């Protein structure tokens, strides 16, 4: 794994003078062997259906507490999915870990896993992708392979089936990715400015993936395809050149959002209401929904309040997050003493 993704517990790149605070036990008990911090993602962004994805500053943290005999695992989940994900045999991280070991011919060392999950499940914020990415990087770390970034991403994409979540999840920032089933091409775009917020509204409504797929048309009008081509190109060009005034057009879409916004109460209303608030540069359904994300420059309060009010008016309980399009992707943190042993 690339050194840029590896930290020790004793390093910290915070811009806010961390020296006055002892962070040496960060997300880890003393016995933790390694810790993987993995961001949420917003895929299918605007016109970039199945192509554009963005990492968000909301993180699941996975700790490997101790090593166990080969193919023996335990799993303790705190937070989101605590009642659903604790069965080690069906846990997606462990399944991804075993798959990566198999692909690379690595010994499937068992381990005790502790998950601290804050990314809501099945809401379009790439929760499952965090498990896939973490499983693959843990396989790489425990086997001491130092696998190149492109190969790690290829394995992650093979497991996930599409690249638009795992690419930004692993690399951070905004990524453009294309996958032909065997080969992956990807480009990471420049980071968002510091004063750009991403407000995410997560309604407590589960949209089944099968329903989200069924909602899409089997064929699209030629005019709609041309509309999306132009918007997707504009979105990437605007992002690459910091021409943020074009984001609203780039986030517009005719292939998926008009259909999927009807699958949850208030979806179409929130998309229309939020885009007109001053400071809102664009609004989109995250993944296949039902989460809605808005990019906001300056204070996010008005957009945040409007999103809360809209779902409340439609009788939907919701969670809301103020995030940033984090430039940093997955980080694996290894205590100094264990780092030396992994490198040997």
């Amino acid at each position, binding site marked *: 794994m690339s050194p840029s993704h590896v930290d020790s517990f004793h390093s*910290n790149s*915070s*811009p*806010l*003078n*961390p020296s*006055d*605070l*002892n*962070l040496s*036990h*960060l*997300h*880890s*008990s003393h016995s933790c062997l390694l810790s993987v*911090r993995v961001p*949420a993602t917003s895929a299918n962004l605007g016109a970039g259906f199945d192509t554009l994805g963005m990492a968000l*500053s*909301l*993180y*699941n*943290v996975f*700790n490997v507490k101790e090593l166990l005999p080969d193919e023996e695992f335990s799993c*303790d989940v*705190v*937070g989101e999915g605590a009642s659903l994900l604790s069965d080690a045999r069906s846990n997606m991280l462990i399944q991804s870990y075993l798959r990566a070991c198999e692909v690379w011919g690595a010994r499937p060392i068992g381990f005790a896993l*502790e998950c*601290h999950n*804050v990314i809501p499940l099945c809401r379009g914020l790439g929760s499952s992708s965090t498990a896939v990415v973490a499983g693959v990087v843990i396989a790489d770390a425990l086997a001491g392979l130092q696998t190149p970034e492109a190969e790690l991403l290829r394995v992650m994409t093979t497991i996930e089936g599409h690249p638009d979540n795992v690419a930004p999840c692993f690399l951070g920032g905004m990524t453009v990715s294309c996958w032909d089933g065997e080969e992956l091409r990807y480009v990471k775009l420049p980071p968002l400015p510091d004063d750009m*917020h991403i407000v995410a509204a997560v309604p407590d409504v589960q949209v089944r993936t099968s329903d989200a797929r069924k909602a899409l048309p089997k064929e699209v009008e030629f005019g709609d395809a041309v509309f999306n081509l132009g918007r997707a190109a504009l979105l990437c060009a605007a992002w690459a050149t910091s021409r943020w005034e074009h984001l609203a057009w780039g986030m517009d879409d005719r292939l998926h959002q008009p259909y999927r916004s009807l699958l949850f109460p208030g979806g179409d209303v929130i998309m229309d209401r939020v885009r007109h608030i001053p400071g809102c540069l664009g609004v989109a359904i995250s993944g296949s929904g039902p989460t809605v994300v808005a990019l906001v420059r300056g*204070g*996010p*309060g008005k957009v*945040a*309040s409007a999103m*809360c*009010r809209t*779902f*409340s008016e439609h*009788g939907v*309980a*919701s*969670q*809301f*997050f*103020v*995030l*940033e399009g984090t430039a940093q992707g997955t980080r694996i943190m290894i205590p100094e003493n264990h780092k030396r042993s992994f490198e040997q």
Partner: protein
Amino acid sequence: MNLQDSPCTTLLSDVRIDYSSARITLLGVPDVPGVAARIFTALANRGVGVEMIVQNNMRGGITDVGFLVKKECLDNAVEACRQVVKAIDAQGVSFNTEIARVSLVGENLTKAIDIPAKMFSTLAETKINIEMIVSNSYDITCVVAAQSAEKAATVLREKFL
């Protein structure tokens, strides 16, 4: 209303609703000395006052810290939290502006040991979820969804006043 079965005289005088606050929660905060000081110093430096601070039980070395701010301070509060979360490697920031504080107001409330149980049972029977609770001798306040506030106040008035 005088609660005759309480160990001393407790007077309940009012049920009030306040829609002026928003709830902010810092998720996955490292449970080490100095973190709370850092969070609330950052908020104070931006002129943001906070109420009803709640820290969850720590598990695995991390915890959640939630509190209320006035809605008009939301922008400053969010910016302060965003900076702190990045600096201390917390897991994220969530918020909700569609909340209300529903308060049972009176005197000597801490002496009436049965009032909290009756209040929470009344809300539970009405299927109203309590997000946060704070109490002192002159009020017991529950944070509930804004949509449920009127209903909560109605059933509490019927029960206690």
